[in-house]
């Protein structure tokens, strides 16, 4: 296997993000093409400079990326659709990154988009009998993981609620978020119980939306100062014995993994980038339900198991804290258009690392990490640096 460190440096030249929300009058290709045009404008590039496109989505049907690109322009370039559940956006970015790093292409676009289905969603992560048994409810599946996590760490319902409060506070400063109104601890704790111990305001809302990023080699950057380097892009898809109820997988009692799926992706990303957790200045975490942000921080190596809630309480993960997490409000505020989520995180990291985040700008951000995971199972990690 090739050592990525020995391959060409890859930069994010431009990002494009649509306002996420609920759009009855638009289809995925409408906001998908909008994200592409925005990313091109941000990169200062024309569409004819782009040599390949990887398009992430989950529920958009056959060749959905082509539908978005039909609204941008057909130039004969290869378009490849990437369906990798909640890591579709991160996986598209990774493929674009590898293509540029390997010098197959010089300029590649990664797109993530999703118009969330309004009707039945047959998840292939669950067998038909599991669907009929009521096991495909993500809040419930995260609840099972949360029950065990709370039992092992002593994390309380109030600790969980604090994640929501932090993220919604950040989201109030993000004009592209679905929800831009802060919530109080009392509102979260008083919200409707969905699956013990998770309440409505512990769970991210769905959303329709798109995000795109133009990746290129250094010589193709129109602005050196606005180019953000991809230091690592890692993807792990399942580790034997590591349970993830949300992906229809229970852990093995006989053969527990030495390293779990998330920890393995983190190891690979740190190894490839040469950075460690101590070097990271800003994190876009995976708060599909708020406890997953907490255990995510632990598994990413930022603290020991059971410590994230205390650090959150002490303000470490606040916008003005030592390690800001989910500066754009996270999934809790942005909403979760499955295929777009991973690239939405990239847009925020790039904005912060360029010092262009306005009211929610953090201080001294030089290295940022984004993490998304979910059904498959997949865990994708991107490390970007100024």
């Amino acid at each position, binding site marked *: 296997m090739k050592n990525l460190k020995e391959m060409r440096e890859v930069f994010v030249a431009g990002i494009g993000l649509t306002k996420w929300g609920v759009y009855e009058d638009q289809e995925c290709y409408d906001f998908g093409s909008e994200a592409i045009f925005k990313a091109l404008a941000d990169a200062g590039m024309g569409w004819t400079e782009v040599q390949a496109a990887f398009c992430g989505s989950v529920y958009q049907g056959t060749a959905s990326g082509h539908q978005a690109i039909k609204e941008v322009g057909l130039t004969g370039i290869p378009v490849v659709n990437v369906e990798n559940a909640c890591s579709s956006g991160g996986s598209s970015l990774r493929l674009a990154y590898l293509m540029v790093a390997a010098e197959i292409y010089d300029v590649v676009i990664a797109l993530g988009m999703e118009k969330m289905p309004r009707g039945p969603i047959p998840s292939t992560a669950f067998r038909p009998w599991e669907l009929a*048994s009521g*096991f495909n*409810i993500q809040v419930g599946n995260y609840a*099972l993981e949360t029950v065990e996590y709370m039992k092992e760490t002593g994390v309380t319902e109030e600790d969980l609620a604090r994640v929501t409060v932090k993220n919604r506070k950040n989201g109030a400063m993000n004009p592209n978020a679905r929800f831009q109104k802060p919530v109080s601890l009392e509102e979260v704790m008083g919200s409707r119980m969905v699956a*013990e111990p998770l309440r409505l305001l512990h769970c991210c809302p769905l959303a329709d939306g798109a995000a795109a990023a133009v990746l290129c080699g250094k010589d193709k950057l129109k602005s050196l100062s606005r180019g953000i380097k991809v230091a690592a892009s890692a993807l792990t898809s399942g580790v034997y014995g590591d349970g993830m*109820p949300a992906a229809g997988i*229970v852990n093995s*009692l*006989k053969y527990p993994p030495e390293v779990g799926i998330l920890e393995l992706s983190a190891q690979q990303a740190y190894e490839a980038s040469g950075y460690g957790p101590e070097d990271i200045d800003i994190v876009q975490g995976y708060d599909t339900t708020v406890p997953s942000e907490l255990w995510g921080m632990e598994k990413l190596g930022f603290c020991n198991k059971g410590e994230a809630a205390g650090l959150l309480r002490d303000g470490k993960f606040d916008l003005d804290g030592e390690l800001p997490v989910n500066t754009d409000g996270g999934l809790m505020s942005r909403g979760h258009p499955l295929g777009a989520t991973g690239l939405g995180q990239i847009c925020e990291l790039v904005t912060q690392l360029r010092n262009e985040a306005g009211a929610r700008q953090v201080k001294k951000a030089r290295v940022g990490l984004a993490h998304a995971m979910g059904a498959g199972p997949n865990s994708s990690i991107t490390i970007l640096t100024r």
Partner: protein
Amino acid sequence: MGDNSHQQIPLREGFWTSGAPDSGPRLIGSRCTQCGEVYFPKKPKGWCVHCQQQTLEEILLSPRGRISAVTVVRQPPAGGFYHGPVPYAYGLVDLPDGLRLVSQITADNLEAVPVGAEAELVIRPLYQNSEGREVLTFMFTPVA
């Protein structure tokens, strides 16, 4: 359409055996003769996903286990594939055979099911299908 409610069908064939009259139902699983890993449901092709050998044999799983996590779901899962009652409880059950499985949990008071409780296998109706037949599935229930 006649009254079919007295007719019962399993959610899926081959998940459990009714057992002898005095022994009660047992779940049917697979065990690897090489590495000992245990699976439920039984893997029909016999391949072990831990050691990649076609070395699985059929076993009857222990009808008793321990509930290691449980949640009570208060809204129907999206998609319309679940036709059972809401709220319902489901969780992770550890069996002494050395495997953890996902199962619905049944109890008089769903909210009072403690984590760590001993539980036993029962076969219960989940819903009535479009032909009026009762669809049965396996569940675990805490033992007093």
